[in-house]
């Protein structure tokens, strides 16, 4: 059952801790039964289903099993194309470096997100070896879905990423089943939609940029003079990238949202505690001009 994003956004942070030990045994049994029906085969802990930990306690503690389920379908909706792609690349890169096999199948549809094509050199920042990416370019959703399913049948891949505009519940079910069989993780990058149609994905995310707090006035930065003697405002440098990740559907878990900070130099990311009125942290050794 997809939750509306509005309710999830209003949820206070950090999310509610779910006390597993205190629940009555009957309820636990019922939950396990539901999870079995949902295709996870008992509770995640019991099934020892492999997960990909984010390495951030807040997120891992919230996700069932302590991380993003491997061998499952995850949907990432792109409120911002660049950030959603980065989130996908980050997850795919971690899956690839964890696995012995590094190959990734990326079904690209530049028309789906309308923000250009995947740029190989940038993938290195996410730990992805561009030479090990099989890039498939298709015009139709159906072809991309077929390619994804074929990729999921190949257990040698670390991850399958697809950029898909429209997908039926049946399609998502097929992908989820294929992913469960081989244990290959499927990531689906989808364009922004107001009301996403239901799908069988294990988690559904919405990735957006984090809006800046309104500034008090323009005089925050020291003015500089250039050769001509005119005065201008130099905008401050970029700090760590901040993403707003909203988990609006999580099978076996609840929805939540986080502010993530991603450091493109170290490849680490963390959850930002305070967003408003935080001084920007200029990252060291930026371009000197």
């Amino acid at each position, binding site marked *: 059952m997809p939750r509306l994003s509005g309710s999830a956004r209003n949820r206070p942070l950090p999310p509610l801790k779910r006390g597993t030990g205190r629940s009555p045994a009957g309820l636990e049994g019922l939950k396990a039964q539901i999870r079995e029906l949902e295709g996870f085969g008992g509770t995640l802990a019991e099934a020892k289903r492999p997960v990909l930990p984010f390495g951030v306690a807040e997120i891992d503690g919230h996700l069932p099993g302590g991380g993003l389920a491997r061998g499952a379908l995850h949907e990432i909706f792109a409120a911002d194309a660049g950030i959603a792609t980065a989130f996908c690349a980050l997850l795919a890169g971690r899956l690839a470096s964890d696995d012995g096999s590094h190959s990734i199948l990326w079904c690209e549809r530049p028309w789906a997100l309308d923000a250009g094509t995947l740029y190989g*050199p940038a993938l290195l920042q996410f730990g992805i070896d561009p030479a090990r990416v099989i890039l498939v370019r298709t015009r139709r959703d159906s072809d991309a879905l077929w390619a994804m399913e074929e990729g999921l049948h190949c257990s040698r891949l670390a991850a399958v990423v697809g950029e898909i505009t429209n997908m039926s519940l049946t399609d998502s079910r097929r992908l989820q089943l294929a992913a469960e069989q081989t244990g290959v993780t499927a990531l689906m990058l989808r364009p922004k939609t107001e009301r996403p149609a239901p799908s069988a994905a294990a988690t559904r995310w919405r990735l957006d940029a984090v809006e800046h707090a309104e500034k008090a006035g323009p005089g925050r930065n020291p003015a500089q003079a250039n050769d001509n003697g005119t005065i201008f405002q130099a905008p401050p440098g970029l700090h760590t990238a901040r993403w707003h990740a909203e988990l609006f559907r999580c099978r076996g878990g609840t929805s939540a949202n986080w502010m993530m900070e991603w450091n493109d130099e170290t490849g680490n990311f963390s959850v930002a505690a305070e967003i408003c009125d935080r001084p920007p942290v200029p990252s060291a050794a930026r371009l000197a001009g």
Partner: protein
Amino acid sequence: MTLADARAILPELRTSEADPEADNRALTRIADWCGRFSPWTAPDEDGAGAAFGGAGSIWLDVTGCAHLFGGEDALMREITNRLAGIGFTAYAALADTPGAAWAAARHTAYKRKHWTIIRKGQVRDAIAAMPVAGLRLAPATVAGLQGVGLRRIGDLMPLPRTALVDRFGSEVADRLDQALGDRPEPVSPVALSTPWHARRAFADPIGRAEDIAEAVRGLARELADTLEADGLGARRLTLALYHPDGTIARLEAGTSRASRSATHLARLFTAKLDRIEAAFGIDAIALTATVSEKLSPAQAALDRRHDHDEAGVAELADKLSIRLGGENVMQMTLQESHIPERAIATSLATARTRPVPAAPWRSGSSLQRSLSRPRPLRLLSRPEEVEAVAPVPDDPPVMFRWRKQVFRIEHADGPERIAPEWWNDGLGLLETELADDDVGREDGTGEDGTGEDSAGTAPGPGPSSIQDSIRDYYRVEDRRGRRFWVYREGIYSPGAQPHWYVHGVFG
């Protein structure tokens, strides 16, 4: 005899214009069709045409093929019967040399059967009685020979070659030597022929999809065995399906990695078999490895896990290429170039020549340096011009309008100046992508020019064009936190309106 004479004798005579080109096309088609008997077939180009009475012929090299049909006699019967079945009256001759076969096919007194065989070692005797026209000579030469009483090929044999050459040129002597096998006569086959070939003919045409698929699997096994014996793996394959009506359906497939796995080779084609129109069935199938590569058995034994990975992924790439088209399944390779568009090249996943080492660029220092700079995750295929407001001379924009949206810039990094490659005279620019060979030529001419008149100075259009095409890239973040890669084209000059472009988005 003129047409008028002929019509006088037989008024209801039906005539039509000669169309040598159509004849040649038909011959080529028949030669193609004859691929069912031997992989090595060719239309006879020298010996066809009006000079030889309009009769065309086709070469078949049946070395080592006859036993598949139950001997030479059975093969010849099969060839003539099949050709009769698709509406051609054909005469066939089998001999040790092409020249002898050519002569025998035209100058044999056929009775019931339409074929003749000159047994091994009997060429000399067999053709001695045939007229000199059997040597594929021009009509004038034939007339000349007849004029001096040389009517049969046997008449030429005892003559000294030098006398023949003096009198009639080298043609007669050459053709005679070719017919007798004293001089080799190469004939090039119509289709590329390789020894890695498997074929199967059926007594009755088969039409069921399962039967065809099963036959293809059998052929794949056969071919895989042949390849294994030679230590090779197939890279390109052709499957030819011969229909009883004389048409041939051909399917091509490539593998991204040399393979001789029978199941893999068969799967390349079984997926495509539904495209084959098999209304009248198929009476022969041939599978050929047109391109093959060394694939030593040791490769499979060493480093097993890695090899398996490669194989699994390569087979996936093949499968995707078959359905989606080879050009849509790509592989990225980093290039040594500081120009963003050139830093990455895509190549067909199936055209990969060898497995790529894990990370070849990490050792390349200049490449590494350029890669340590932040690059957008998604690059627009073509930079899009935006209306930007930016302080002069070289500051990032404070706002820009792109795709009808206004972006107010809060943070910016840069600039990173990316200049065109100086060795390209400012021509190797970012929009005007030159092909590699063009770049090479550009290099050559540039050197020549500067060497002659102005050694040491920049080439002609140098400074201004390079300055115009320099790009100053900024990473900017707008108020909503979205990050873009924008650049200003050219160096600031007072009075000129700078052009700003968006080139990519960051994560």
